[in-house]
């Protein structure tokens, strides 16, 4: 890939395995509301292990691939820095602390989840959590709304109705709608 002038990297070092692990532990524990923003801050702005252009490219790949985006990012990033061992360090750093935290929270919920006051609090939080996801979806839908480009919104709406309202099993909906979506995009691709 030819380097464009603006992507000429700042001085970069190859991070140690320990540094990779600790960076993703930090991302995992600080990452309120979307860990990927924190991942970008760490990789590009603070540690300068990646240029902004490089990050965007890896990010696009991680969104495209199935699976949790931030876990994909950890694996691809770790692999680019230090190969398969690097990928294990980054993925481990991302997953292990949150896994432990979730087990603790799960145990607390199993033990105290039926307490009435906690029920009311969780009931409130879940209404906001639903709104957060709906607002995020609306934000994501924004780039789809372009003049005379009806196909994007139509496909998004079809998926929403099929999976969210009609509650068709995910694999059935995707088996029909993904080929359709790709076929439409194929006809429009350069």
């Amino acid at each position: 890939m030819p380097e464009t002038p603006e992507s000429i990297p700042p001085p970069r070092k190859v991070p140690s395995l320990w540094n990779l692990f600790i960076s993703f532990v930090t991302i995992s524990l600080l990452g309120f509301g979307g860990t990927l923003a924190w991942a970008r801050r760490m990789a590009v702005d603070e540690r300068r292990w990646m240029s902004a252009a490089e990050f965007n490219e890896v990010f696009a790949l991680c969104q495209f691939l199935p699976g949790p985006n931030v876990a994909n990012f950890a694996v691809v990033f770790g692999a680019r820095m230090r190969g398969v061992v690097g990928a294990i360090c980054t993925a481990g750093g991302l997953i292990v602390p949150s896994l432990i935290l979730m087990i603790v929270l799960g145990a607390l919920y199993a033990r105290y989840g039926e307490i009435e006051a906690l029920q009311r609090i969780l009931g409130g939080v879940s209404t906001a959590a639903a709104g957060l996801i709906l607002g995020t979806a609306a934000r994501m839908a924004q780039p789809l709304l372009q003049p005379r480009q009806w196909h994007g919104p139509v496909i998004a709406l079809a998926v929403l109705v099929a999976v969210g309202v009609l509650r068709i099993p995910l694999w059935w909906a995707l088996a029909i709608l993904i080929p359709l979506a790709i076929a439409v995009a194929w006809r429009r691709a350069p």
Partner: protein
Amino acid sequence: MRLDAGTLLAIAAHFGLLSLLAVGGGNATVPEMHRHAVEVAHWMTDRQFADIFAIAQAAPGPNFLISTLIGYQVAGIPGAVVATLGMCGPSSVLAYYVSGTWDRFKYARWRIATQNGLIPVSVGLIGASGVIVAQAADHTVLAYAITAVTAVITYFTRLNPVWLFVAAGLLGFAGLI
């Protein structure tokens, strides 16, 4: 809680499949997690699902950790570990192998078409997650109103969602929802 090998295998199979179906990230699979956990396998009630979703969203860390909580609810710590590995394992292995060859197809038509085609699909899936969690969580007019207000604030501002969770939690605690 069930701790037999069959249950753990069922958890691994469910989340392992979801890992590869998660077009658009972890939250895209929330509808299928709900369908399976509540309606098919009867691992939990609708309300418990909404609670667990709220905990996973409000806690720090990646959103896909709702799988950990579901696994824990079904089969304790082994269930939590199996669910988490199932959710990340298959997609991580795929990501590792694809990232090595991806640059080679940078300008290939199939890559551009696939990438563009999947964007509206993932938008639809995230929207579906919101609809399903709202239906599980909202039972009063005020609850629907809070969901709507949160959605509008999320759409128009960059306010840290923690504050929205705190506000909604307080309203809930006060018995208003």
